[in-house]
């Protein structure tokens, strides 16, 4: 197979991202136009506002990416795009743009699952990962545990039944008045607090289940804050943040390790925006080293939403000949690993 030079577009949430990736590992260009400042005044991502912003940013981001890579459209071998899951209006901008580019340039189109993209952030930056692996994908939109036996071959293990881990971070951050996005702010406060100061529940669900649930934990934090307020007692934000973060991490780490042991894999991958959380990385890393399991995670910039990971996932789809048609649609609740 000759080289792949893939122009990838990712617009599933609040980042307008474009990258050019060569052969799945070489990032020739990457542009991420963040909308965080636009959404900050609303206290979270507003779908209609995000969709409008994507359309304003997408073409200039593509132009910048080509300039960075010093390439023209004719040198691009494939066009790739995230087609789900995500905000439908936001996804549609990327999908319509990528389809039209592929058609105009007469090159194949590749549709990529957003979570699969997060998984491939690991392959983008590590070329020595040996299958099988267990991968924990945690972000504002997803908390998913899968076993991966080969490129594109997934064994779905579990996912959240209510809030995603990152969503719980955002909601607790809002309740603490820390603002949006909540993840990094909780992490910062947690560093100054005690993670045993406040007793919070851990939701393990049924025996053997690899599903997650964070809404009970979130409610417990909100109840605690209400109670303290009623009693007119002071709230130590750092302690709340640390105790909450610890409760999330303990469940994530435990279940991931159990899955790895049961599947007898020697490698665990961490992916998604919450994989940028240092406390989670450290906790998993400690537990893994005790068991002789290798822990792999991407650098922080490839944990959050980006297009390079989409370009990497698309490379392996190109190798397998998995192309999309020009009627490709955005699928907001696209399933992953469930066949």
């Amino acid at each position, binding site marked *: 197979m000759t080289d792949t030079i893939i122009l990838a577009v990712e617009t599933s949430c609040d980042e307008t991202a474009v990258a050019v990736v060569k052969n799945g590992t070489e990032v020739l260009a990457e542009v991420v136009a963040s909308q965080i400042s636009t959404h900050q005044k609303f206290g979270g991502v507003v779908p209609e506002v995000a*969709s409008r912003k994507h359309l304003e940013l997408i073409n*200039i981001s593509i132009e910048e990416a080509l300039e960075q890579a010093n390439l023209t459209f004719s040198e691009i071998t494939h066009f790739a795009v995230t087609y789900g899951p995500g905000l439908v209006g936001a996804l549609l901008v990327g999908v*319509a743009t990528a389809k*039209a580019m592929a058609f*105009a340039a007469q090159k194949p189109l590749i549709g990529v699952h957003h979570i699969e993209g997060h998984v491939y952030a690991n392959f983008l930056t590590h070329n020595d990962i040996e299958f099988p692996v267990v991968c924990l994908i945690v972000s504002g939109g997803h908390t998913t545990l899968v076993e991966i036996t080969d490129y594109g071959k997934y064994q779905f293990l579990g996912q959240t039944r209510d809030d995603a881990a990152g969503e719980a971070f955002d909601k607790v951050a809002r309740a603490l008045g820390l603002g949006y996005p909540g993840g990094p702010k909780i992490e910062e406060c947690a560093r100054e607090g005690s993670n045993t100061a406040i007793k919070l529940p851990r939701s393990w669900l049924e025996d053997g289940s690899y599903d997650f649930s964070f809404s009970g934990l979130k409610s417990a934090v909100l109840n605690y804050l209400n109670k303290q307020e009623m009693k007119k007692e002071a709230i130590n934000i750092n302690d709340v943040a640390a105790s909450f973060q610890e409760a999330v991490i303990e469940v994530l780490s435990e279940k991931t390790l159990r899955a790895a042991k049961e599947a007898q894999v020697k490698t665990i991958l961490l992916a998604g925006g919450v994989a940028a959380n240092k406390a989670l990385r450290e906790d998993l890393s400690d537990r893994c080293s005790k068991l002789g399991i290798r822990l792999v995670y991407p650098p922080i910039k490839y944990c959050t939403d980006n297009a390079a990971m989409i370009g990497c996932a698309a490379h392996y789809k190109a190798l397998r000949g998995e192309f999309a048609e020009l009627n490709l649609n955005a699928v907001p609740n696209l399933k992953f690993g469930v066949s």
Partner: protein
Amino acid sequence: MIILSIDSATPVAGVAIVDNNKILAENFLNTGNTHSEKLLPLIKQTLEGVKLELKSIDGIAVSIGPGSFTGLRIGLATAKALSQVAGIKLVAIPTLDALAQNLAGIAQLICPILNARKGEVYTALYQSNSVELIRQSEYTALSPSALCDELRDLGKPVTFLGDGVFEYKEIIASLLGSQAHWASLHQLLPRAASLAVLGLKELEQGKGENIFTLKPFYLRKSEAEIKWEAGRCQR
């Protein structure tokens, strides 16, 4: 000069190819809001139908709004990307102008009304002269009864068209009586050929949009912005 026109502002998906005074092809799909799946295949099919490649097109005209927010974005994202990759000029035509163009030449006032939800229509008023349509009012969103109040004061016959007719014909007829007229079924909804006619004029005048700054003409702010601004005023 050959133009490709693209319209997905309403539940209709339309694509036409016009070569100066000749409509080479026109495709019209009124099958609901599945533009994401249908628009690009329709463009491909229209080009193939006349054995033209994208690179032989001199300009693209896109229906810029007002209309369905999502529909407008699919149309504009598609048009911008085609323009960017193939290096083709892009012109943006107001959706109501293109719709009114369906009736260009008639003596009466022309009033396109597009379903804008929330009990309102997107509308503007047009009058034909011997060469072109002249818009008589601002683009606006208002209730059919408020529109009828304004039109009644003019005291002239008005012909309505657009998908708002399906929803509001009875109300308008009851308020305006014999002052109200209706476009025939084949002229009632947006036609890509009408869009192309207006687009060609723009191209001939040397006009073209900057695709890096071009946005849909939404007319309305998003709900979140409206609420946020309302909240700010109260404080």
